[in-house]
């Protein structure tokens, strides 16, 4: 069963190679990529079942035991992330295929799209199964390289311009991550997560602080945490709709996953709790205030994406098992709902001809199905009961009140306010785009649209395109998935609670990787740095 762990990374890569060779034969390409992602979904579901009943799956690649070789570890958290991202990738792929069929593949060079998309999938899976920091770095680089290509697909002026900002920001965060790995290796003599987790508490507090902060900043850029979030709302909306959806749903969550993993493993004593709280509050507030000013639905959604990263950071900052469970649940919820909303925005773009609220109108009549998709997604993101967004936030707030510090109540207040403002921003979008009659769009004046700022890239055009049933179907099935998260919230929350139990103490993870204990791994003469002298 553990053979599935490397296979889930290799299969999409193999698919990428095959689709690259099938460049001219689009139908076969589609078949191969849909098949490999379906297989990845099935494998991750099987892995989740296996891991949940038997325990973490550990693979020593090439038979080299950790910490000398590469080690892949799938515990419940990894398996949950694998399953949800595989499902999202598959859904978005179907949407992209639907869009490609309608457009006759004229806009995007699809011969490149499928291989790159599969490499992105492989990179994501690799980052989730990585049992050492460096493999995680390689996974990050795989998915980032693929994302560079996907973001600049077609090579138009606007995409190149925002693409370069995105690439330079990502490169700097990657270099920071690499520097952090070097310093962690220097301090602990290993890059294996489990061994670092064991050795980290023995390091002097100041060195722990430097390592922790470097890792936090590196992952924070990827997760779009407040001071490092400026790049996201500019770069994501310019990409093709399916690409934006998969970026919004998954790429930032890899950063969140990495923060969650390193914080719980390396720094279980909550040294970073207070800075994380402050950053979480600022991320929520600044993100949502940005969203309030946007006239463009895609930009609005990008800002809410930044804002809601704050909730996950809040959960990580609390650090209790309940809070971690709530965070994992929130991550799963947010991945699905954000992907759904971006796909719905892609549909709006096609039926309404634009995503600018100042030119959209009457969509409730002309596209009732899209209206329902957007409406339910918006309610869910806004945290209206009984949806999963509400349940996730309640769980987070409950975890906060149990700890009961004054700062927790501040954070809960900020969280509730953010939720309210999210609802306001999305309800306004709904009012203007769907509820407002088409004929009122021209010369429309209202206080609710007075403060809206247009997207700087906006060309002021209205260009409607046809929508294929496959696109609507893919978006609808995403929505059904988010509703499923609501209906089956009980069992899913039990699962995330078990996952949190796995990671809330590092010893479980360490025991899984080193079943015979780490006593036999003596500090080799090499790599043992700082030589304990400064302890």
């Amino acid at each position, binding site marked *: 069963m553990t053979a599935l762990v490397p296979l889930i990374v290799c299969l999409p890569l193999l698919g990428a190679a095959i689709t690259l060779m099938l460049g001219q034969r689009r139908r076969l390409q589609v078949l191969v990529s849909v098949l490999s992602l379906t297989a990845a979904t099935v494998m991750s579901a099987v892995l989740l079942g296996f891991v949940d009943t038997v325990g973490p799956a550990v693979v020593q690649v090439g038979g080299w035991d950790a910490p000398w070789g590469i080690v892949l570890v799938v515990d419940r958290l990894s398996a949950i992330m694998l399953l949800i991202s595989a499902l999202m990738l598959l859904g978005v792929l179907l949407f992209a295929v639907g869009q490609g069929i309608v457009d006759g593949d004229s806009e995007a060079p699809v011969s490149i799209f499928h291989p790159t998309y599969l490499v992105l999938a492989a990179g994501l899976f690799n980052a989730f199964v990585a049992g050492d920091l460096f493999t995680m770095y390689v996974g990050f680089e795989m998915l980032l390289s693929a994302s560079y290509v996907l973001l600049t697909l077609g090579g138009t*002026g606007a995409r190149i311009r925002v693409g370069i900002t995105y690439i330079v920001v990502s490169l700097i965060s990657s270099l920071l991550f690499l520097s952090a790995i070097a310093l962690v290796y220097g301090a602990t003599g290993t890059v294996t997560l489990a061994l670092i987790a064991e050795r980290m508490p023995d390091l002097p507090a100041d060195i722990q602080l430097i390592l922790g902060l470097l890792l936090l900043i590196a992952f924070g850029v990827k997760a779009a945490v407040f001071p490092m979030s400026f790049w996201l709302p500019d770069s994501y909306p310019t990409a093709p709709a399916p690409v934006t959806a998969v970026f919004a749903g998954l790429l930032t969550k890899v950063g969140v996953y990495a923060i969650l993993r390193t914080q719980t493993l390396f720094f279980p004593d909550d040294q970073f709790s207070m800075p994380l709280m402050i950053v979480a509050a600022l991320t929520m507030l600044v993100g949502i205030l940005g969203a309030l000013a946007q006239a463009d639905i895609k930009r609005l959604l990008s800002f809410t994406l930044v804002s809601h990263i704050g909730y996950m950071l809040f959960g990580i900052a609390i650090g209790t098992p309940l809070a971690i469970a709530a965070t994992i649940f929130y991550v799963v919820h947010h991945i699905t709902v954000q992907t759904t909303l971006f796909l719905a925005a892609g549909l709006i773009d096609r039926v309404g001809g634009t995503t600018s609220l100042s030119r959209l109108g009457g969509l409730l009549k002309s596209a009732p199905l899209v209206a329902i998709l957007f409406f339910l997604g918006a309610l869910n993101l806004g945290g209206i009961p009984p949806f999963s967004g509400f349940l996730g936030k309640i769980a987070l707030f409950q975890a906060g009140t149990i700890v009961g510090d004054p700062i927790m109540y501040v954070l809960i207040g900020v969280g509730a306010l953010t939720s309210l403002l999210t609802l306001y921003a999305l309800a306004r979008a709904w009012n203007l785009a769907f509820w407002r009659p088409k004929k009122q769009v021209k010369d429309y004046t209202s206080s609710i649209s007075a403060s809206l700022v247009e997207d700087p890239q906006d060309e002021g055009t209205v260009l409607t395109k046809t929508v294929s049933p496959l696109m609507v179907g893919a978006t609808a099935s995403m929505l059904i998935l988010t509703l499923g998260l609501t209906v089956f919230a009980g069992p899913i929350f039990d699962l995330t609670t078990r996952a949190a139990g796995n990671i809330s103490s590092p010893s479980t993870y360490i025991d899984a990787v080193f079943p015979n204990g780490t006593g036999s791994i003596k500090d080799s003469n090499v790599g043992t740095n700082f030589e304990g002298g400064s302890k």
Partner: protein
Amino acid sequence: MSASLTLVILMAVMYAAGVYVMLERSLTRVLIGFLLVGNATNLLIFIMSGRPGSSPIVTGTSVEDMVDPVPQVLMLTAIVINFGISALLLALIYRSWWLAQLGDEGDTLTDEHTAESAEEADDAFRSSSDDDHAIAESIDEFERGDGTTSDEDAATGADNRAGSADAGGRADASARDERDQR
């Protein structure tokens, strides 16, 4: 932990210079900055292997004399990744330059024109003065400059040839072209 002071100083200088160059507007300089910082990071990894020693893995070396092989492996991977990313960046910079000079129209030129513009592209890379010349010529020739951008491009072309994708008029032009293509 023992480390060579020379390497540490070299790394620090490379980091500093790299970050400084990265802050420039021109994309080619950003690329150079990225290469410098990337290699400084590689040096940092290398420094983390601690004291010097003889080659690892080779038979006949005693374990005590070996240098730590792990940082070298990490470095090798990082170098390969940096190489790939640099190639991608170069392609993007070229594309950005291309769009700045010709707009999206560059993609739809007839064969005859493509040959000419490719020649000019070669010229432009030869030296910065040639570059200015080629830019001015290509702009005149295709009558792209509607009075707002040609001067600016010609003046800043040498320094800023990749970064000039930012120039507002060009952006509008390429946006318009993108629309036309649809």
